[in-house]
């Protein structure tokens, strides 16, 4: 009888122990090895947006043969002024030009008053975007198409700043210089 009791207690203890047993232990630390390249942070939106649903909507997302002559505020698309945004890791430069390429307004983060590292931030890009947009509106440009060059902190916020300043943005083009056989770049920095 005592053994039966003991067995029953043992059984209940083991069942209790099994209740508190956790699943297989997971590695909590990231695996870092010098031979395996570290994952890069990427650009905002590089992995997130649902591409299929965006493409399935029957809107004109991409240029076609006829989209060049589509009217925006009375102006055909090919005659819209262009806002070139040159984004680098340390600065953002905006240039508003005529459709043929003749420059009208130039603004950069340094001209706003930001110095050194503060130029290479998204806040600086946004502020500069607002300033150039207000200048453009004063000079008479309301509808523009945007051309972005480069990867950097100000890539998204520059365009946002333009819109906040009052410009109507029709399209966004990416003109980043990507080459598969570029001239030899400078050596990698060892920090």
């Amino acid at each position, binding site marked *: 009888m005592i053994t039966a009791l003991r067995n029953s207690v043992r059984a209940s203890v083991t069942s209790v122990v099994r209740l508190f047993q956790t699943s297989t232990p997971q590695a909590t630390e990231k695996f870092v090895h010098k*031979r*395996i*390249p570290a994952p*890069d942070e*990427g*650009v*905002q*939106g*590089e*992995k*997130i*947006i649902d*591409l299929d649903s*965006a493409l399935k909507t029957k*809107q*004109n*997302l*991409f*240029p076609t043969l006829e*989209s060049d002559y589509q009217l925006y505020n009375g102006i055909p*698309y*090919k005659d819209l002024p262009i806002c070139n945004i040159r984004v680098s890791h340390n600065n953002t430069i905006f240039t508003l030009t005529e459709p043929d390429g003749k420059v009208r307004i130039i603004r950069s983060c340094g001209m706003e008053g930001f110095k050194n590292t503060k130029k290479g931030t998204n806040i600086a890009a946004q502020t500069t975007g607002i300033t150039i947009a207000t200048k453009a509106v004063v000079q008479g440009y309301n509808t523009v*198409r945007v*051309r972005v060059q480069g*990867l950097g902190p100000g*890539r*998204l916020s520059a*365009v*946002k700043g333009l*819109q906040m300043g009052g410009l*109507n*943005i*029709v*399209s*966004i*083009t*990416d*003109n*980043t*210089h*990507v*080459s*598969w056989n*570029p*001239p*030899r*770049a*400078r*050596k*990698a*920095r060892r920090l």
Partner: protein
Amino acid sequence: MHLSLRLLSNRHPSFIARTVFVQNNDIDNACRLINRIMGKEGLLAQYRLTRYYEKPFQTRRRVNHEKCKAIYNEDMERKIQFVLRKNRHEPFPGCY
């Protein structure tokens, strides 16, 4: 100066490739869409690669790692698809 200008010259017609029209003044979505497309195509990765010179030994290391990763991912996908195959008359067996 002349050489760099020639290398950076815009020989292709503009506003055709890598262009997204903004719908309903929604530039956030347009930016994300273009980043997503470019990321998927591998353009952004290539830009980051060519920013600094990648020595041949680093190239070999990276390429081998990518090959191993691709093999692993393919096998894992096959396993997942196999495990997800089902033909049950009762969708949630054992659940009340």
